[in-house]
């Protein structure tokens, strides 16, 4: 910015030569009505970059949990999916999710059209200063959309072809995610507080999902489940006679790093979902959310640690990582109202769910490489169901109904898309390609070319 040099120089001079300091000018401080807007907008930028960081977390988690020979592919899918998500959410998703008054079908299908931001400097516009800038809101919401896509990539690793995966991601981030998210967060029918609206008249409460145990995580989980079923398990994973062959992750430090990144990003994910930081009450609420999010993750990790110790005699690191993430997913539907103790327990139940359902999926021969379905779908359902335990504005029937509506919509449409992709272009690499690893056969590039394998 062109003003930089002089002002910076002035600031320096002011210190070095205090006598030179400019007289205080009352016009420089923000006008009173800007302050809340600045607080909330900046909060979205900070929490938004934390959620962005989760994309790196998923990438590292997945790169650590696949086998060496499929690592480059996993990296490529994660870089690609975030980039496609960013572009599709801008072109289609944002207005579909937040149509304001422009619903195509009221409360069900939002508006079509690319997102556009405020003019530079808010020039020539009367801005509503009670919330935050559209730019910051767009930035923040975009990251949620990308998160949904990240969830899918882990479950389908080590066998899916690159472009069919990207095509699915494009449809997921442009259409599936935004449409269902509009029902709740865009003010659609699941969030309609009119006494005469469907939710209130039927259940007496609307659907409550603070930061997206259902709207984000279970959606990713349903899409992944549909994909995993249609794609089939990895070669050699399930032998006749029920024998399950584990394919241990190649690089557990990366997987652990990914988990820590996700944990960090989640403070933004849940904290930013408070949506306001313009009063003491709001910032105190964000603080509650940070503390609860942290303790739920700890609860999930400890639960998985203790449970795997008891079940298998040796604690399982990958389960502890999944347990922490399940704790985070579990608290996401309601990170505000629980006490620290309740949050810890809600997270711990998430950890238990993961430890019990990972082998269950294996027994069902549903091959989920990184545990995405237990973590995001099962713990997401649990988290959504747990809301009424601490929040009176939620009810079990409304929660169950919403879980089902969202689940059926996402699972069905995902299944249709995967089936069409399978029929039209094939979604799975060939047998020999899968044996030799996707890195060489699909991308011609090894992730660790100089490290010898054993």
């Amino acid at each position, binding site marked *: 910015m062109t003003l930089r040099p002089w002002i910076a120089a002035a600031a320096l001079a002011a210190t070095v030569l205090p006598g030179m300091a400019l007289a205080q000018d009352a016009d420089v401080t923000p006008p009173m009505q800007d302050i809340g807007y600045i607080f909330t907008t900046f909060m979205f930028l900070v929490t938004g970059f934390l959620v962005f960081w989760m994309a790196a977390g998923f990438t590292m988690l997945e790169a650590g949990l696949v086998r060496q020979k499929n690592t480059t592919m996993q990296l490529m899918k994660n870089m690609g999916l975030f980039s496609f998500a960013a572009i599709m959410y801008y072109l289609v998703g944002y207005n579909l999710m937040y149509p304001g008054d422009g619903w195509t079908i009221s409360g069900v299908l939002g508006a079509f059209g690319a997102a556009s931001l405020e003019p530079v400097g808010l020039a020539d516009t009367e801005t509503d200063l009670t919330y935050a800038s559209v730019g910051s809101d767009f930035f923040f919401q975009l990251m949620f959309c990308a998160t949904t896509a990240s969830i899918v990539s882990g479950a389908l690793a080590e066998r899916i072809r690159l472009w069919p995966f990207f095509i699915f991601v494009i449809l997921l981030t442009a259409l599936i995610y935004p449409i269902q998210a509009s029902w709740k967060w865009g003010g659609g029918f699941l969030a309609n507080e009119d006494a005469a609206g469907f939710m209130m008249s039927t259940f007496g409460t609307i659907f409550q999902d603070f930061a997206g145990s259902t709207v984000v995580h279970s959606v990713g989980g349903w899409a992944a489940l549909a994909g995993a079923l249609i794609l089939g398990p990895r070669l050699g994973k399930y032998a006749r006679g029920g024998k399950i*062959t*584990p394919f241990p992750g190649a690089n557990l430090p990366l997987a652990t790093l990914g988990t820590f990144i996700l944990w960090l990003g989640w403070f933004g994910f849940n904290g930013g979902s408070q949506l306001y930081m313009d009063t003491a009450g709001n910032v105190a609420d964000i603080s509650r959310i940070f503390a609860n999010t942290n303790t739920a993750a700890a609860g999930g990790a400890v639960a998985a640690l203790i449970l795997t110790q008891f*079940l298998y005699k040796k604690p399982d690191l990958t389960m502890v990582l999944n347990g922490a993430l399940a704790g985070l997913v579990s608290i996401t539907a309601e990170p505000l109202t629980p006490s620290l103790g309740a949050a810890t327990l809600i997270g711990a139940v998430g950890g238990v769910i993961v*430890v019990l359902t990972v082998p269950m999926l294996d027994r069902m021969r549903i091959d989920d490489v990184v545990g995405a379905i237990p973590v995001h779908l099962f713990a997401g359902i649990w988290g959504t169901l747990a809301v009424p335990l601490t929040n009176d504005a939620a009810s079990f029937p409304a929660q169950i109904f919403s879980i089902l509506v969202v689940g059926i919509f996402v699972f069905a449409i995902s299944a249709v898309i995967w089936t069409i992709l399978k029929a039209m272009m094939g979604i799975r690499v060939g047998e020999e390609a899968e044996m030799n690893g996707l890195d060489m056969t699909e991308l011609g590039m090894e992730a660790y070319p100089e490290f010898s394998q054993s």
Partner: protein
Amino acid sequence: MKLIIATIKPFKLEEVREALTAVGVRGMMVTEIKGFGTQSGHTEVYRGAEYAVNFVPKVKLEIAVASSMADQVVETIQKAANTGKIGDGKIFVLDLQSAVRVRTGETNEDAL
């Protein structure tokens, strides 16, 4: 000359190497391998699924020696690598027809 191939437990490598140096062995080739034998691995659980680890990490030594030294070398390895537990390894002796030192072109026992 003989080519002696021995497979031992990895943590015995340093001990064996020192013992061999003591009896006059001046060179060898060392490779990390996976051994399969009576000490047939063990069962682990990964994410709730049991599986057998059939291979055990071992180290393989290949040593070319003059025929006269072969017995002593075998004995030295056997002693140094011994822990008395299953999986201590094996020592194999093959006949070596000729040897060449790349640097000088010296052959046979001069090359060792």
